């Protein structure tokens, strides 16, 4: 054997004492990796912060969408403070301060003209962006009773969000009623009753449904499903909550299916085998033993499906009709929160009350999906711990 090349045959050691400070590259790399991985936390925080930022004025009732009854003549400009003038002009104080004298004068003139032209409607002086009008019904001019109206693009801006909430919930409910039985049934079949061969390819095919983009689903609902359903049921409005809800249901089937199937498969085979050995039929074993054991996971699947459905935009934007009327009927054209944001944001003026209101309902959406996600996660987490403790 030739002389070894890294021969450490000597007694005693060299270089052992260098300590952990000997490897600065390691240390730097580790810190950098940690910093990058904070991205998820930072992103979530930024989303929350910046959406809240745009909606704060509405949240605190500081936006005023009423039509001014007070006119400040241009000549009297100097009698008022910057703060009062910026409020009069309905713009942030910082923006007002950034303008030069000429621009300010121009703005005052425009505002004076606009105020002269203000509508003579009895409701012109109401701040429709205040909480009372966002949530409670009101009898507007031209309506024969107190109603919930969302109609931002009109002289008197009507900002009641209740029709949108009802629209979202209605459509989501239809979607859940359609999707949950199908997805759960399929999940039970695939995890408990199907042969191994069938499971091998039915499961991926169902999961493939999630590969269809929602805009394609919306297109299909709009072009194909709406016509078919109208022919079958014969209602008046071609695009409505039913059409959108069913298409939405298609879209959430993979979500509910995957999680429920996971939960059912995680129930140890030993349970159902014990039941079968005691003489129970397949049906009884599944219904009485396996399903109850998987209940938390199934529940989580439903909750996560709900969260996904209520947050979906393109399908409802294209297939629900988008009439922001207040109705509990699924065959009426309807408007959801998501579709409202999608359809109206591009038309708003940056910083206006309409703009901020849309951000506010977006914040609402974020909070709802956050909590439904959290609930689903906690249930799945507890489920996993329970099964691990048992297994």
């Amino acid at each position, binding site marked *: 054997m030739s002389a070894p090349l890294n021969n450490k045959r000597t007694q005693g050691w060299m270089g052992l004492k260098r300590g952990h400070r000997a490897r600065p590259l390691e240390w730097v790399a580790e810190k950098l990796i940690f910093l990058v991985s904070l991205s998820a936390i930072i992103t979530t925080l930024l*989303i929350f912060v910046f959406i809240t930022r745009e909606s704060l004025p509405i949240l605190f009732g500081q936006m005023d969408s009423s039509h001014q009854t007070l006119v400040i003549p241009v000549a009297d400009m100097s009698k008022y403070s910057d703060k009062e003038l910026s409020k009069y002009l309905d713009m942030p104080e910082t923006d007002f301060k950034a303008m030069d004298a000429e621009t300010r004068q121009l703005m005052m003139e425009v505002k004076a003209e606009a105020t002269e032209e203000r509508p003579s409607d009895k409701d012109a002086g109401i701040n429709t962006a205040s909480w009372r009008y966002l949530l409670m019904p009101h009898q507007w001019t031209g309506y024969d009773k107190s109603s919930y109206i969302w109609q931002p693009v009109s002289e008197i801006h009507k900002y009641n969000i209740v029709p949108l909430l009802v629209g979202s919930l209605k459509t989501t409910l239809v979607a859940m009623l359609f999707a949950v039985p199908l997805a759960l049934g399929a999940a039970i079949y695939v995890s408990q009753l199907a042969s191994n061969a069938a499971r091998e390819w039915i499961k*991926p095919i169902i999961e493939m449904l999630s590969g269809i983009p929602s805009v394609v689903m919306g297109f299909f609902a709009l*072009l194909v499903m709406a016509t078919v359903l109208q022919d079958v049921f014969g209602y008046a409005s071609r695009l409505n909550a039913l059409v959108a809800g069913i298409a939405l249901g298609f879209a959430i089937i993979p979500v509910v299916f995957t999680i429920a199937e996971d939960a059912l498969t995680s129930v140890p085979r030993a349970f159902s085998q014990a039941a079968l050995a005691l003489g129970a039929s397949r049906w009884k074993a599944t219904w009485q033993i396996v399903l109850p054991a998987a209940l938390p996971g199934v529940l989580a699947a439903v909750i996560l499906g709900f969260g996904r459905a209520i947050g979906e935009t393109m399908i409802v934007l294209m297939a629900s009709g988008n009439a922001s009327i207040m109705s509990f009927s699924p065959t009426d054209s309807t408007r959801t929160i998501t579709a409202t944001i999608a359809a109206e944001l591009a038309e708003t003026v940056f910083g206006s009350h309409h703009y901020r209101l849309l951000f506010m309902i977006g914040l609402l959406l974020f909070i709802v999906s956050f909590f439904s996600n959290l609930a689903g996660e906690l249930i799945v987490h507890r489920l996993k711990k329970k099964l691990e403790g048992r297994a």
Partner: protein
Amino acid sequence: MNFATKKHDYESSIFSGLTAAAAWLIVAILAVILANITWYGLPGLSWNFIAGSTEKDMFNPDHASVMPMIFGTAALVILMTVMVVPVGVITAIYLTEYAHSSSPMTRFIRGAVNNLAGVPAIVFGLFGLGFFISFVGGGIDELFYGATAEPVWGKPAIIWAALTLATLTLPVVIVATEESLKAIPPGLREASLALGATKLETVVKIVLPQALPGILTGSILAVSRGAGEVAPILFTGAAYYMAHLPSKLTDQFMELGYHVFILSTQSPNIEQTRPILYATVLVLLLLTFALNVVAIAIRMRIRKKLRSLH
């Protein structure tokens, strides 16, 4: 004891039948959708459609082409991937290789990842507008061009749309990468460390090469997602019509999914537009759905290979 009499188990048969029907119904629905789109979309796929340039009269079957949309989608998705894959992979590496599983910070990060995965797409759009365009873009404009000048960065642009999509697909990459990292047997890491390698060396030389197929899967899934989501790009950069292809980061762009939306809802004559619409949907589907299938196929192959290894 009498075992001979066999009573037919009606309950279970009905039960099996119903649940099987549910599964098959879902498969059937998928088949119907795909068949419908392929049937009506295929005839519209001419070479001119795919590779020509589009004129303003995009609703007219003789003038329409999806080339600008394909280009826009590709550019968007490439920008997005370049940003999301490194961040996602590094985060997954931190979570699997470096983090102490019980520490609150680790649970916090995981919680944030799970939360991000559930945020509605339109909320990402709002985020893109409120943060990237207004704050970052507006800030850049103020810094370089002054407060009252015409916005350069502080308006919808392909870079902001790409960043928005990157935040949306971040969880996808992280989860897929983590899955592939966890599948690597710990014995390999131990062997490397016992030979005097540092953790970083072990991750780079032993762990990452093994995890590459999983990372690839995650990237493909992210691309498929990014190409299909329309809500986040509605106000962050997608345009109804652009006369030229996007060439700068501050340009707006036409995009496949957005175009499907426009054709579906803004067409003056839906019957005339129908063939182009179907063809566009088919192209979009080929892109996203096919990518999704490829990714899942890779993932299944990996799982099978790993099962035989252990």
